[in-house]
């Protein structure tokens, strides 16, 4: 329904997709600007950082397309329309995902994919079967990990009522963080996004394997293949958080 409604205003749709492309593309323009001044950042060269960027943005874009409507949850709770979702005979999570499902978010995926393809073509890598296979696995696991973050954030919004911006710190903040190599950040910071909020498995760890760089925090060799496992665990935890959130929900009325 949302797709059809968006397609009704075809020009407006095209314009917003392009607008979205431009807004999200600014991050990469920013990186290009930095590289107009230097040859490497944290010891990583442009194609390698583009690889990180492409992986992060594409994975995040997929999660955003499916679950990006989560940030309206706060206002739905405030105006009481969240109750309507609860009494409908369909999973609440699916309803929120479909709420204002916006194809214009394709802009972000497209932009991430373009950078990823460029990075794959220019980066200096000895490709093996394992490395080639790891790329799609990273994108899908990354999308699942980001989705779990979205769901956990939504659960938090039920507790905190009106705090959708906290979620932005982890979702948008997370994808921004992963666009830069782990060597840029402080060790405790990297520890946090590896073990507490396992964003490092979206690209840092597996990409280090593909690029033949030392792993962040000197993780063991097999960690590069852990993303699907990490994604599954994240999903389970986010699911628990979501159920706890729903269970504690008190409507806005007294």
């Amino acid at each position, binding site marked *: 329904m949302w797709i059809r409604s968006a397609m009704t205003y075809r020009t407006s749709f095209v314009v*917003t997709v392009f607008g979205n492309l431009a807004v999200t593309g600014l991050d990469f323009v920013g990186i290009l600007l930095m590289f107009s*001044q230097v040859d490497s950042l944290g010891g990583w060269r442009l194609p390698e950082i583009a690889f990180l960027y492409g992986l992060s943005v594409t994975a995040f874009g997929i999660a955003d397309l499916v679950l990006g409507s989560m940030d309206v949850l706060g206002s739905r709770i405030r105006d009481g329309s969240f109750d309507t979702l609860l009494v409908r005979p369909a999973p609440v999570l699916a309803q929120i995902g479909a709420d204002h499902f916006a194809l214009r978010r394709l802009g972000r995926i497209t932009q991430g994919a373009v950078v990823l393809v460029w990075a794959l073509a220019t980066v200096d890598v000895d490709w093996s079967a394992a490395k080639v296979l790891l790329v799609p696995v990273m994108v899908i696991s990354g999308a699942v990990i980001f989705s779990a973050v979205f769901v956990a954030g939504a659960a938090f919004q039920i507790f905190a009522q*009106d705090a959708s911006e906290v979620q932005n710190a982890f979702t948008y903040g997370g994808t921004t963080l992963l666009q830069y190599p782990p060597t840029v950040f402080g060790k405790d910071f990297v520890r946090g996004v590896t073990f507490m909020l396992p964003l490092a498995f979206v690209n840092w760890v597996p990409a280090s394997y593909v690029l033949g760089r030392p792993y962040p925090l000197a993780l063991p060799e097999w960690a590069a293949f852990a993303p699907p496992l990490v994604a599954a665990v994240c999903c389970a935890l986010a699911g628990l958080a979501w159920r706890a959130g729903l269970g504690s929900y008190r409507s806005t009325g007294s």
Partner: protein
Amino acid sequence: MGSGRLYAAVAAGGFRRYATYRAATLAGVFTNTVFGVILVYTYLALWDEKPHLGGYDQAQAVTYVWLGQCLYSTLAIQGGGAEKDLMDRIRTGEIAVDLYRPADLQLWWLASDLGRSLFQLLGRGVIPFTFGALFFPMALPTDVTSWAALLVALLLAMVVSFGIRYLAALSAFWLLDGQGISQAVMILGIFCSGMVLPLNAFPGAAGDIVRALPWAAQLQMPADVLMGETDPLGAYAFQATWAVVLLAAGRLLQQAATRRVVVQGG
């Protein structure tokens, strides 16, 4: 002096309205702090690679980041201030009611937006900035005059920011749907204000252009005034010129726009 009191009351209303959303303010503080930390690390890596980029040392680059996070919502760099409400009122036609009020439309919205800015500065800006000063080495002046100079630059930055967004909002009289314009405000704001990279680190001709545009009055000028990188009077002149130009353009556009208003049934 009756009208002065009126606009002061409008500004106070703008302040109070944003002060009501306490959870949202706290959430914003948290988000700005997280983004500040991420940005600081990337800037430090960049300045490691190329010391004195744009004439800043590392401590100055860090200061720039935290001032940016402090001013992000204060100056509505991404949009989302008074212009959002104004666009809504134009689209729904409620603007006709505003035009009947015995108050000046532009001054009314300026006052309301200044109230909002002031709240965002105190409620959302100061904490991330203080956090940055506590945990990262910053180049902060110790004399009162530099801080006083910053306040003047901030006030001018608020007016320039409003001037840009007011023009954008008035375009809704012709376009009705403000989405495209809001997107343009966002892109230009983030990029040309120097949220991505300080404007003095932009290379070549691109750098000369962005440093001459009104967006440079929002973050670059206050930062340079605070850190003593520029002569405050020169910075004020730059900001004030743009403020006057933008407000005058807003006034002209407003006159053209209000002639277009056709009230239903009237």
